[in-house]
């Protein structure tokens, strides 16, 4: 007790609800209703859906080919993966196998996109924690890889690069040169990242031992991607069910045991290094050959085929793509997108539209993880849990 007349401060235990967002700089397009007791979070209610645009419903009224730009929209930072997962499911229904070179090109585009996506995630995490240099670096270094995607696919944001049976454009020598420069640049830059961001005492204090997810909980709550691997589970779709050219490439999956925010950041960081290793191998090993399956290639008139494919190295769509009708059936595909496992489930009834298309994005599966992980944390740590999960609201809402 303070002596009488002194500056006595009475601390009253207070509990209540606090609204975070949807316009809060640390909340994105999401409202978080936080039940507090003092500054300990008792429960979190995520009010998602501010950017919900009913992709699944719209898919029932559009042709398979028209859906490609639509399914990409939810995660515009990771659009190659969104595109690729959908196409793999459609290819399973159509029973088409893309040629070797197309498989390598798919992996190439996907890894470039993964680096860009992880740099975005790291940038957002650092700005949440008040480190604006990391934010600017993240977006600046990402630009290098977005430029490569732009040169390869012709689009900056939603690339629509992968099509049933192959890819749209070929890898030219100028892009290879550009990629080599980007690899050298990012290699240099990642050293700076380590000293400036990862070994930053403030960031480490905010991330270490915060939001700890044990291995059992990660499995039980159904976590995905880097968040799952930071909790000690060795699971990566590129290894369990290889797609693209991943079964021919040599790379490792970073796994950490700690399960805290810092481990999640490290997993993301090391995945960038692994992706660069993969890209180097692809540039070295990519086989020659067509970039579209013969079945579709033969439908293009021969003179046009020669002109487009050999001179300009790109595919002009055969008429088949306008409104093809795949046979009856269903297919489920999974790929490892930037934020984790992405699942597509397509049911076809033989018409030109899918009967039902289910899209399970990685962030969608993190909704429950985020809710559970925040319980018992301090209020100040809410943003560092949020940032370290790399939760992206539009991707969850779809």
């Amino acid at each position, binding site marked *: 007790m303070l002596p009488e007349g002194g500056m006595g401060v009475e601390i009253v235990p207070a509990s209540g609800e606090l609204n975070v967002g949807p316009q809060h700089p640390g909340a994105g397009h999401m409202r978080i209703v936080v039940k507090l007791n003092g500054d300990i979070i008792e429960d979190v209610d995520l009010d*998602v859906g501010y950017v919900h645009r009913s992709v699944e419903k719209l898919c029932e009224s559009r042709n398979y080919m028209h859906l490609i730009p639509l399914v990409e929209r939810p995660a515009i930072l990771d659009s190659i993966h969104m595109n690729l997962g959908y196409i793999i499911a459609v290819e399973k229904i159509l029973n088409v196998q893309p040629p070797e070179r197309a498989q390598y090109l798919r992996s190439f585009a996907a890894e470039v996109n993964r680096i860009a996506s992880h740099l975005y995630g790291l940038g957002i995490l650092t700005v949440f924690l008040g480190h604006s240099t990391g934010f600017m670096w993240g977006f600046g270094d990402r630009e290098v890889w977005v430029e490569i995607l732009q040169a390869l696919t012709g689009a900056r944001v939603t690339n629509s690069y992968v099509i049933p049976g192959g890819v749209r454009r070929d890898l030219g020598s100028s892009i290879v040169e550009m990629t080599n420069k980007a690899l050298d640049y990012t290699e240099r830059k990642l050293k700076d990242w380590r000293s400036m961001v990862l070994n930053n005492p403030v960031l480490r204090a905010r991330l270490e031992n915060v939001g700890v997810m044990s291995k059992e909980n990660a*499995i039980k709550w159904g976590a995905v991607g880097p968040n799952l691997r930071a909790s000690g589970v060795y699971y990566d779709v590129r290894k369990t069910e290889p797609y693209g050219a991943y079964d021919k490439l040599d790379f490792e999956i970073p796994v950490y045991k700690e399960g805290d925010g810092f481990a999640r950041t490290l997993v993301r960081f090391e995945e960038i290094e692994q992706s660069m290793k993969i890209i180097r191998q692809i540039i070295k090993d990519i086989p020659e050959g067509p970039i579209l399956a013969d079945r579709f290639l033969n439908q293009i008139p021969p003179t046009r085929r020669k002109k487009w494919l050999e001179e300009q190295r790109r595919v002009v769509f055969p008429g088949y793509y306008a409104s093809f009708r795949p046979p009856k059936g269903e297919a489920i595909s999974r790929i490892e997108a930037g934020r984790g496992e992405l*699942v597509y489930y397509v049911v076809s009834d033989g018409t030109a539209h899918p009967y039902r298309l289910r899209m399970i994005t990685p962030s969608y599966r993190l909704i429950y993880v985020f809710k559970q992980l925040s319980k018992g944390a301090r209020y100040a740590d809410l943003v560092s849990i949020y940032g370290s999960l790399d939760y992206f609201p539009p991707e969850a809402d779809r």
Partner: protein
Amino acid sequence: MQELKNTFGIEGKAESDRRIMIEIPDPAQIRKVAEFLREKGIDHVKSITGIDYPDQKKFSIVYHVSSYGDFELAKLILSLRTYVPYERPEIETLYEIWPSVWTFERETYEMLGITFKGHPDLRRMFLPEDFEGVYPLRKSFKVKQEALFIDKQA
């Protein structure tokens, strides 16, 4: 697989070495099948999909389950398929068995109107609070198309 047939009398079909489809005719059985599979090491749910079949007046619910803990088992995706009728679209929740169904069950409830009995927090999730009308993912819900008119020059 064989054990599943002996215990519950249900058939499974292997589409490839990575995909197995199991059809469960009676929706009341789903909980027991799920418990059985969890003991075998299937530890999480990848997706729950509700599909509307208006001409047969029933919904199909497809669970895609797999494993994280076992690397060999993780190569497999099991799909459990069951049906609920229009008159009584309800099924037991699997929340106690696989807590990862939390989000999926809430979304299937809101979009198709299938009630998951025993779910701890069955509320709307994505739709706006003042949303009115039928459940949006049913086939009877029609998306309004905006027409585009272009004046032709004479």
